[in-house]
């Protein structure tokens, strides 16, 4: 099971596109990538979840950890997600109130 992670710059955002399944096996790669972005000085991180086929609480923990880390440096981490199955997981755990969630990368980065 592979996890695809791709980082691009867009209007001051570091856009991290995630593809595949995020679970206890693949989450460490995801976590490491977010830590690396913050350590590199990125303060506006956008995680694009449109290519995610599966996300469980381990993946949610990585997202929350990333948010805490970047906020401790006065930054922010937002999400791009329109998939019902992923939004449902975020809603059940109350995380739709914690993260800013955009419909697209364009919508998120347009006003930065």
């Amino acid at each position: 099971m592979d996890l695809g992670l791709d980082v691009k710059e867009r209007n001051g955002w570091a856009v991290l596109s995630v593809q595949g399944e995020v679970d206890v096996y693949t989450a460490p790669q995801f976590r490491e990538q977010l830590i690396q972005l913050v350590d590199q000085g990125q303060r506006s991180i956008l995680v694009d979840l449109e290519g995610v086929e599966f996300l469980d609480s381990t993946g949610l923990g990585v997202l929350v950890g990333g948010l805490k880390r970047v906020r401790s440096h006065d930054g922010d981490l937002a999400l791009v997600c329109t998939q019902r199955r992923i939004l449902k997981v975020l809603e059940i755990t109350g995380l739709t109130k914690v993260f800013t969630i955009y419909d697209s990368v364009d919508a998120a980065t347009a006003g930065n």
Partner: protein
Amino acid sequence: MERVVELEIPARPEFVGIARMAVGALAGIRPGLAYERIDDLRIVVSEACTSAIEGMEEGSNLRLRCVDAPKSLEVRIEAPEAAFESAFPKDEDEPDGDSFRISLIRALVDDADLRTTSGFAELCLVMHRDAASDEDDGDLPA
């Protein structure tokens, strides 16, 4: 007709995906569970297997027993009792980092029951099938 499918996997993170894929495929054989509910079951199986594996010794195996019946699908996961402590905390007034896991398990299956006996635990996850499936046991035509 009730059918039992048993799966035993090494208690390692890379095998959790195989467990949820197998259970998801089994759930779809018989009608009565919509795709979205099968997806919910896959998430809960992933949560339960992750909890179990985190509490099991290296080199051990994780057993899943699936009881596929016309009206329900049960997935029973066996592990040492301590393995499920994080998913089913005894003191719910003190939520910790595993609260996402218990929220998902409780929200996404129709019933989740933890049975413990002398240090051993069986987590039983139940999904009820739609009434329309009562007359169709999902057997393939001859």
